[in-house]
């Protein structure tokens, strides 16, 4: 079986455009997910029962349902409720952000809880408020601990973002599908798509490794 290199070269620009869209969705989703996650993690540690309950519900519902179903719900069900069309890009980023937020919140919670309780008590006894202790003492240390799992989350989202191809959003996987429908070269195109994903994920893990070194060696 011949391996058609020129076909790969011809379609590489289209695939790379798709890869750029994948990076865009992932960055925006994990970025939004980072802030959602931070807020939800703090809500999870709140003294108010109702706040804890809401945060818990959010995490359980989102982690307990497939991302694909969440994408369908946002793209198909939401327009019926709000009575207006949703752009596929907005639907994709919203679904992925909400999804990522749940995972990131658990990462944050683990990070915050890994810091000894005594630090909060020490901060409070020095006259800092809860928020100040969180902001200046707990969070900086927690952040160091959560860099590796955050990197994991980013890599996982980069791959999971391929699910938004079902709503016709042309990221890397969908571009691959479209090219194969015209060229019939499944092996060449899926192989190239895999290599592009691999290059992106390896780059991210390198970046994470660099950040780890930077924050650990003083």
């Amino acid at each position, binding site marked *: 079986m011949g391996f058609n290199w020129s076909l790969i070269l011809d379609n590489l620009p289209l695939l790379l455009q798709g890869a750029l869209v994948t990076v865009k969705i992932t960055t925006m989703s994990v970025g939004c997910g980072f802030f959602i996650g931070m807020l939800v993690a703090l809500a999870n540690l709140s003294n108010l029962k109702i706040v804890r309950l809401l945060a818990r519900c959010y995490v359980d519902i989102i982690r307990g349902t497939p991302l694909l179903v969440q994408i369908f719900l946002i793209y198909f069900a939401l327009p019926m409720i709000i009575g207006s069309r949703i*752009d596929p890009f907005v639907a994709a980023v919203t679904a992925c952000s909400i999804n990522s937020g749940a995972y990131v919140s658990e990462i944050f919670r683990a990070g915050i809880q890994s810091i000894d309780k005594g630090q909060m008590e020490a901060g409070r006894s020095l006259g800092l408020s809860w928020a100040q202790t969180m902001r200046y003492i707990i969070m900086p240390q927690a952040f160091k601990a959560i860099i590796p799992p955050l990197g994991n989350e980013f890599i996982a989202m980069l791959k999971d973002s391929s699910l938004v191809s079902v709503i016709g959003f042309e990221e890397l996987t969908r571009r691959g599908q479209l090219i194969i429908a015209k060229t019939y070269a499944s092996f060449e195109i899926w192989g190239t798509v895999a290599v592009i994903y691999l290059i992106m994920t390896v780059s991210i893990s390198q970046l994470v490794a660099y950040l780890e070194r930077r924050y650990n060696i003083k």
Partner: protein
Amino acid sequence: MKLKKSLALVLGATLMIGVFAGCGSEQAPKKDTIKFAAETTYPPFEFADGDKYQGFDVDLANAIGKETGKKVEFVSMGFDALIPALQSGQIDAIASGMVITKERLEKIDFSDPYYQVNLIMVVKKDNNTVNGEADIAGKTVAAQIGTTGAFLAKEKPGTTVKEFDTIPNMLQDLENGNVEIVMLDEPIAKYFIQVGNMANLKIVPVGLQSHQLGIGVAKNNPELTKEINAALKKMKDNGEYKKLEDKWFGNIK
């Protein structure tokens, strides 16, 4: 006091979700534009050429736009996503080689039929055991998800049906020997085998069902159905339709 606080929190949370859902560019359906959608992995009906969509349905959609004096937008999505998208108002019409069936008519409206196709089977060239509809029983069959071929295969006793998103994946599975039969509409099968150069596959020359293709429109939009029907009729009368038919199916018949 405590109650007030929790109430404010719940309200705040709801608001946040609302803001989140609402952010970005919402688009109200525009009256002067018809937004068509298709699963664009279905040549010669619809496929992507670079970052442009092409094919019989795409040309037909544009021609309908010309006849009705409306702008045409053409978007791509999975075949199983098309009807939900129409129902939820994300799109105005489906032009995706979609067969008019009783089940689909319960959910959406169709224009008058614009093309007729036969459902056929594709097998490996050296397969002589599949010669007609009766031979589907007990076999492993591939069909596109949610299509008439998939429904027919599921009715047969002892048949394992694998449903795929796209045609190339099904034909690849057939070449790899994981399935014995692929259910397809004839023009697509011919196109793939001829243009796609799949020399070790063949068509079993028995039409299983005759299908009418229609353009899907939401049930609450009968004006659009009427407009599309008028445009189709005009195109058939003035020869425009024949031109498109020759362009996309002329050399594969």
